[in-house]
């Protein structure tokens, strides 16, 4: 014998659903132009290779109150044919590269020479925001891609380099006032979770690999 479901059950279920929809709606409305641009770009890149978003946008996505027109992305070292497919997919989905429309030129003349290329929304006529894309250039970049992470606090569906990596790069390599402030902001947001030993390990690696190589160059 079954009993009719009490009305309160349906009311609670409806209330729960309405609350979830309200939260989802607010999260969508809260997305900035940079958030939408980054999520759209990353969803296309993810179909072709691994990537990370690093540097300033990591701090901005965690509430750092400063402006930027570009987002930094590092791609794993893809082959030329993979890059061509990725570029064509980006173009098909409304992005355009500032430097050239020819993916072979972009790969040979920019990416393999440790340079960067910049993509923008085609409809906006080469204006901001921009995604600055580079290939992983050394062990440090490969390690950042290997340990990439989604950061739930940002509410963004994007892979970032770890917080420890971002702090270490900003404090050890980049070191401008803006970068030091970004690092301090991230340190406050993640103060209970930050692994200081990991930051020091990455800083040592930056000194050995990046700073030494740049002195030689």
């Amino acid at each position, binding site marked *: 014998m079954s009993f009719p479901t009490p009305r309160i059950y349906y009311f609670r279920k409806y209330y729960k659903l309405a609350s979830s929809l309200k939260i989802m709606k*607010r999260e969508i409305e809260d997305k*900035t132009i*940079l958030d939408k641009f980054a999520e759209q770009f990353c969803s296309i890149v993810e179909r072709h290779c691994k990537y990370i978003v690093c540097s300033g946008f990591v701090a901005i996505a965690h509430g750092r109150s400063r402006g930027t027109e570009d987002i930094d992305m590092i791609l794993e070292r893809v082959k030329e044919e993979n890059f061509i497919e990725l570029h064509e997919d980006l173009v098909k989905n409304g992005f355009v590269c500032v430097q050239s429309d020819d993916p072979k030129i972009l790969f040979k003349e920019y990416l393999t020479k440790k340079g960067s290329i910049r993509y923008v929304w085609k409809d906006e006529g080469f*204006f901001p925001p921009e995604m600055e894309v580079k290939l992983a250039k050394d062990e440090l970049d490969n390690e950042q891609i290997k340990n990439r992470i989604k950061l739930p606090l940002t509410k963004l569906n994007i892979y970032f380099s770890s917080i420890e990596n971002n702090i270490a790069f900003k404090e050890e390599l980049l070191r401008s006032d803006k970068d030091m402030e970004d690092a301090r902001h991230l340190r406050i947001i993640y*103060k209970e979770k930050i692994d200081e030993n990991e930051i020091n390990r990455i800083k040592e690696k930056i000194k050995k690999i990046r700073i030494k190589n740049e002195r030689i160059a």
Partner: protein
Amino acid sequence: MRESHNEQVERWAEYVKNNPDKWKSRLKPFLDSQIIIARRFYKKLAETEQGKEKINELRKSATANYSAEKRA
């Protein structure tokens, strides 16, 4: 002067940490306005004589500054 700016950076970071559902709606107009203003400016600049060349120069200069910052 600098110290008070540092304090402001820290105060805002604490606010973000303690108000995960509120900070975004407060920051969104500020972040979006920078992109909107930049777009508006570049569009106007592009319409002027040599405007497109100047935009290209600005782009190259931004990339050069970024690389220099990383080397410093």
